[in-house]
C-alpha cells in the first residue's frame, strides 16, 4: 500500500513537470510573436548601454584569431558591451539556431549562411534592421552589392547585414588546356562546349567538366540566368523556370553530362574536387574558396591551374554568390547592443580586415565601395576576377518560405535528367508542376 502511494506520488511529480513544460512551451512560442515590423522608432544614433551587457554571438568563426581580435577591439570601443562566443559547427548551425529559437533561448546575434536568412526572416525570427540602418553612420543599405542585399531582404525590409561573400567562377587546368591546344579559358557557351569536348578523352580517363546530380539545381542557375531565365516571378507567386530560355539552358547543362566522369555523378561537389586535383577533370565550377583549398590541400599542382570568370550567355554575365550574413534574433533582450556589434563588424575598416585583409581567407566584402578599392587588388590579386564577378552575382534565394521545397523538387528532377531518366524539358515541367502544387497550399 505504501509503495503504491509512492509510485503514485512519482507519477504526480512527473505529471506536474510535464504540464509545466507544456505550459512553458506554449508560452515561449508566443513570445516571439513580436513580428518583423520595426522595433525602436527613435531618431539619432543608437544609445550606448549604461550598464554592462553581454551579447551572445553564435557562429563558427569565433575560434579564428581575426574574429577574436575584432571582439577585443570592439570591447575597447564599447567598454560596457562584452561579446560572448557560442561556437557551432558550420554544417549544423542552422539546425541548432532553429532549435534555440523554438526553445526560446536564441543568441543575440548569429552569423548565418546568407542562403538561410530568408528562412528565418520569413518566419519572424529576425529583427527588422531598416530603422537601425537609417540611423547609422558606418553602414548604409545602398552600399551593398545588389545580389547580396537581395539575400538579406524580405518583403522590402532588410533583415541582415551581409558580412562576407564570394562569387562562383571557373577553375581550369592550364596544363591540360595546353596539351589540348586551347590557349584561353572559354568565354562563351559555344567555346565552353567545344573545350569540354576537346578535353574529354575517356580512354585516358580524362574529362572536360564535372557535374553532380545531388547538386544539380545549384550549378544550373548560372546557365539559367546567363540565358535570361528566371526561377520565380518577383512576387514569388509564379513559376518561371520552365520557360523556353530555361529549357535551352537546361538542355545545354544536362548535355554536359557526357563530358563528365560517371563515377562522380552521385558525388557532392566538395568530394569532386579530388577529380580536378588529380587531373581527371579539366574544368570545375566553384567559388573562390576553391583557390584556398587547392593551395592548402594540393600544393603539388601549383601553377597548373587558374581561375577565370564564367562564360557569358545570351543575356550577359551571371553567377551564383554565396556568403555570410549577420542577423539579430527577435528574442534578444539586448537589441541595441547587438546592433552595435554588427554595425562595428560591417564598418568599412573592419569588414576589409575580416575579408581580404586576412592572410589565408578567400572571402570578399559585399560592399561596393570596398570591392572597388585598390587595396583589394593589392592584397589579393587572385581574387580580382571574383571581385569583378560579384557584380554579376544573382541571389538564388527566393523570398518565399516554400522555396526550399520547390528547389528540392527541381534538384531531384534535374538529377534524374542527368541519369537519363527524363529529358531536361520533362524535368523542368515536372518540377514546375510540383512547384505550382506546393505554392498553392
Amino acid at each position, binding site marked *: 500500500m505504501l509503495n503504491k502511494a509512492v509510485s503514485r506520488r512519482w507519477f504526480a511529480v*512527473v505529471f506536474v513537470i510535464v504540464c509545466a513544460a507544456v505550459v512553458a512551451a506554449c508560452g515561449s*512560442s508566443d513570445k516571439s510573436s513580436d513580428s518583423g515590423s520595426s522595433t525602436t522608432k527613435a531618431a539619432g544614433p543608437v544609445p550606448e548601454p549604461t550598464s554592462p551587457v553581454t551579447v551572445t554571438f553564435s557562429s563558427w568563426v569565433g575560434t579564428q584569431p581575426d574574429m577574436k581580435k575584432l571582439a577585443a577591439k570592439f570591447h575597447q570601443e564599447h567598454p560596457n558591451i562584452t561579446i560572448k562566443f557560442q561556437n557551432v559547427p558550420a554544417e549544423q548551425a542552422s*539546425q541548432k539556431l*532553429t532549435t534555440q*529559437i523554438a526553445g526560446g533561448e536564441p543568441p543575440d546575434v548569429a552569423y548565418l549562411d546568407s542562403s538561410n536568412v530568408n528562412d528565418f526572416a520569413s518566419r*519572424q525570427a529576425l529583427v527588422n534592421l531598416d530603422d537601425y540602418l537609417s540611423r547609422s553612420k558606418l553602414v548604409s543599405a545602398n552600399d551593398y552589392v545588389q545580389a547580396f542585399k537581395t539575400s538579406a531582404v524580405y518583403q522590402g525590409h532588410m533583415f541582415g547585414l551581409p558580412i562576407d561573400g564570394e562569387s562562383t567562377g571557373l577553375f581550369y587546368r592550364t596544363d591540360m588546356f595546353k596539351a589540348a591546344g586551347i590557349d584561353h579559358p572559354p568565354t562563351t557557351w559555344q567555346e565552353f562546349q567545344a573545350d569540354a569536348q576537346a578535353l574529354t578523352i575517356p580512354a585516358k*580517363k580524362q574529362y572536360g567538366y564535372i557535374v553532380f*546530380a545531388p547538386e544539380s539545381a545549384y550549378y544550373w542557375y548560372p546557365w539559367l540566368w546567363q540565358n535570361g531565365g528566371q526561377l520565380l516571378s518577383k512576387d514569388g507567386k509564379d513559376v518561371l523556370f520552365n520557360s523556353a530560355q530555361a529549357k535551352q539552358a537546361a538542355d545545354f547543362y544536362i548535355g554536359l553530362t557526357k563530358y563528365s566522369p560517371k*563515377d562522380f555523378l552521385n558525388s557532392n561537389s566538395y568530394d569532386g574536387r579530388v577529380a580536378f586535383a588529380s587531373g581527371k577533370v579539366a574544368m570545375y565550377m566553384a567559388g573562390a574558396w576553391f583557390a584556398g583549398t587547392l593551395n592548402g590541400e594540393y600544393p603539388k599542382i601549383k601553377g597548373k591551374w587558374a581561375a577565370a570568370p564564367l562564360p557569358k550567355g545570351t543575356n550577359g554575365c551571371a553567377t551564383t554568390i554565396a556568403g555570410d550574413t549577420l542577423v539579430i534574433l527577435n528574442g534578444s533582450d539586448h537589441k541595441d547592443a547587438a546592433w552595435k556589434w554588427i554595425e562595428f563588424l560591417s564598418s568599412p575598416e573592419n569588414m576589409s580586415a575580416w575579408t581580404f585583409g586576412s592572410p589565408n581567407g578567400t572571402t570578399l566584402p559585399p560592399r561596393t565601395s570596398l570591392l572597388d578599392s585598390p587595396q583589394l587588388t593589392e592584397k589579393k590579386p587572385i581574387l580580382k576576377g571574383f571581385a569583378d564577378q560579384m557584380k554579376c552575382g544573382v541571389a538564388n534565394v527566393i523570398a518565399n*518560405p516554400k522555396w526550399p521545397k520547390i528547389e528540392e523538387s527541381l534538384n531531384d528532377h534535374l538529377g534524374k535528367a542527368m541519369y537519363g531518366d527524363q529529358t531536361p524539358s520533362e524535368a523542368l515541367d515536372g518540377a514546375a508542376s510540383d512547384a505550382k502544387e506546393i505554392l498553392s497550399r
Partner: protein
Amino acid sequence: MSVAANAVTEQAVPRGARGLRHNLRQMRREWSAYAFLSPAVIVFSLFTAFSLLFLLYMTFHEWSIIQPQKPYVGLDNYKDLIHDERFKRSVINTFYYTGAQVPLTMLVGLGVALLLNQPLRGRGILRTMFFLPNITPLVVVAIVWKWLYNGDYGLFNYYLLKTHLIHDPLLWLSDKNLAMPAVVLMAVWNGVGFAMVVYLAGLQSIPEELYEAAKVDGAGWFQRLRSITLPMLRPSTIFLVVIEIIFSFQVFTQIFVMTSGGPVDRTTTVVYYIYESAFKFFEMGYASTVAFALFLMLLVFTALQIRIQRRGAW
C-alpha cells in the same frame, strides 16, 4: 534442462484473466519490482514520454518550428503522407537496407565471435581490431570507403578487374542499382563489431559441461554448433534482431555521407526524409507525422517479434 528452459520466459497466467483485484494484490506483493524499475521509469517519462506526446501533438498542426503561428490542421498531414511518393520510396529503401544489412551483420558477427572465442593468441588484439569500425570517426570512414569504391582507382574495382570478374569498372556509389548494396556493405563492415561483442558475451553463459557431454556422445563440431551453441545464443540473437531492426530503420548519417541519399533518391531513407522536412523545409508537423508512422511500424514489428519469441517459435 533447466538452463535451456530459462532461455524462454513465459508468463504463466494470461493478463487480466484473474481479475483486477488479483492484479492489485500481486502488484502490492511485487512492489520491489516496481521499485527497481523506478529510476528508468523516471528518466523515460521525463524525456521520452513527453517527446512522444509532443510529437503526436505536432502531427495535427502545421508547425513550422520558429513561426509563432501553428494552425491546427486536423488530419491533413496524415492525408499528405499517404499520397507522398517520396515517402513511400524512402520506406522501400529503408526496408531494402534493413533486410540486407541485419542478417549479414549478424551472420558475420556470429562467425567472428565464434572464432574469437577460442583461446587463440592475440585474440584480444583481434577483437579490438574488429570493433574499431564502430569507433572510427564517420568522416574518416566515409573518405576511405569512397576511395575503395572509386570507379577508376578504387581497390574493389582494381581487384575485380584484375581477376576478370568484370570488364568495365563498376560505378558503385553513382550507379542506381549498386549504390544501396555498396552502402549495405559498408554498414555491415561497421556493424560486425557490435554483433561480435553481443555474441561474445552470450557465449560466456554456455557452460563448458554441455560441450564435454556432447563430445562424449560423439557429436562433431557442426552438431555441437547446431544443438548447443545456437540454441543457447537465442537470447543474444533475439536481442540483435530486435535492436538491429530498430536502429537500421533509423539509419541516416551513414548513408547520407556516402551517397547524399542518391542516386535519384535510391538511398534516401525515412529518417533522412524526416530531417529534411524538419530542418530544410521547416515542416515540423509533417516531419512528426512521418516519424510517428515510423514509430508505429517499429512498435508493431517489435511487439510481433517479442510475441513470437514468447511462443518459442524460434
